[in-house]
């Protein structure tokens, strides 16, 4: 059904390709250099892949949190105009369910990934790597998962075991 116009387009390209002697007509992607990729390749895997150099502690992160997060997420992540980030332990699947980083999130690496990519709300992707590690540490600490002085970096963050981790299961289609 769609193939008619595709074939016409392909035929047109073949003519051009034939004139230039190119064997394949349908390649228009421009090679991306490592320098170009670096600024966009910000995703962090659960094994810590993609975590940049840098570090931070909860103590350092509290200052960043107070300056850039507290306005929406409330004191110590208890929630305000934006979602609560702490509390709700043991409520998942129950009528009083409260999904927070501490009660729900399965991977600590996701905190870094999300904070760096999507926060703080008025200007996302604006935190430095050190600030992001520090805020991540603070969010883990207010949830009782790490201590105030624990250093979060590319080596330590993937090793943090989230309390609800084992309750996540992949869907298997029958």
């Amino acid at each position: 059904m769609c193939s008619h116009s595709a074939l016409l387009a392909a035929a047109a390209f073949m003519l051009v390709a034939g004139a230039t002697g190119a064997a394949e007509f349908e390649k228009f992607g421009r090679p991306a250099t490592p320098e170009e990729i670096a600024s966009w390749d910000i995703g962090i895997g659960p094994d810590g892949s993609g975590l940049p150099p840098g570090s931070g502690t909860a103590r350092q992160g509290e200052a960043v949190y107070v300056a850039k997060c507290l306005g929406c997420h409330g004191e110590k992540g208890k929630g305000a105009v934006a979602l609560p980030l702490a509390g709700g332990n043991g409520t998942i699947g129950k009528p009083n369910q409260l999904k927070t980083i501490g009660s729900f999130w399965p991977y600590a690496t996701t905190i870094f990934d999300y904070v760096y990519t999507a926060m703080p709300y008025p200007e996302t992707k604006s935190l430095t790597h050190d600030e992001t590690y520090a805020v991540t540490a603070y969010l883990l600490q207010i949830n009782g998962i790490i201590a105030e002085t624990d250093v979060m970096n590319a080596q330590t963050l993937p090793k943090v075991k989230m309390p609800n981790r084992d309750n996540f299961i992949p869907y298997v289609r029958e």
Partner: protein
Amino acid sequence: MGRKRTQDDLEFVAGNGLLHRRMFLTGGATLAAAMTGYALRDTAFAEPLPVEPWMKIPTADGFAPYGQPSKYESKVVRGEMARAPNQMPGIGNQRSPIHLLNGTVTPNGLHFVRLHSGVPDIDPDRHKLLIHGLVERPLIFTAETLMRYPMESRLYFIECAGNGNPLYAKEPLQAGVQRIQGQISCADWTGVRVSTLVEEAGIKPGAKWVLAEGADAAGMSRSVPLSKIMDDALIALYQNGERLRPENGYPMRLLLPGYQGNTNVKYLRRIKLVEGPMMTRDETSRYSMTRADGKTVQFFLQFDAKSVITQPAPELKLQGAGFYKITGLAWTGRGNGRISKVEVSADGGRSWAEAMIQSQILAKAVVRFQMPWRWDGRPAILQSRATDETGYVQWTRDAMIAERGSTGNFHSNAITSWGVNEKGEINHVFA
């Protein structure tokens, strides 16, 4: 042939007045016979037909640069922007007025909208799509370069993962079909096969998943299996013949036919081939299904078969006993994505009869069904039930709650029930 059809010819096929779908084919005489009070009003039509003003007065209207619907259709609009408590201004959704539409294609201005940080103002000449990760040659594409590739045009539905989530509630939400099920839309999507671009980049061994990321401020990102990308995924550039609407992903979006809405990443800026899921926030803590046993199910990506009656619906009151046409939408993401049958019940699921499918049945597109019904003026419960070519039958709300509990929130594909009372008012009920 030749004999005058009467109400005695009506072929009832299920409880509470459902009529055989064949009625739509045998013509107007039977339909007319089904309508009560039709003959009594003959005397009211003794006057000559009026010659209306618009039949006489020419106008200079009708030459707008971009046409708009008739002013008489001003109620056919998306719902109010809705957002949950604790969410920022750009995070929310708008639903499609499915009770006022017919056919299968959702007009672009009425497609449902779900945004995670508002619409970004993207300059199409500066937008780039990067394909990298486990590839031989990382590549950058612009919209302009994508235009040179062979394209594919398909009608595909997109549904929000949370559409219909009021069916998980303890009590039936008293709202219309637009509010309850209006996050389903279907459009003619045109774009380039993602497989074409990924093959140009060259797949390295070990690549099993891809991360798709948007250029919006939220960097909306999801991991999906590479097999899906290579099967039928598109980089969509056109929606119903025109470039994508900003709220639906301009200048380009990922289109994963039959997959939950948010995986069709809008404002697509990056596809990274990876070994396994990246466990982004949206696939861990957001679009995952939490069960009563405390377990949370991830990567429930493909939609099961579903249908909903869009007319009658709570927004539309019945005007007295008599003949009505029941109509609605059905769709599935399973298997080849084709609906095989839609059944309708007027007695809360005690008896069912097959509806007529009035549209084409296309893979992973909505189909439109219709069913003749003679309402006797007594309470009734209207339901529809879809079956797809894999044999999957749309389940009841009771079955869905029994399996998933009340915290599932997503992929609510259970049967929706409309309760009709003696006044012709329609309410959302659990039945």
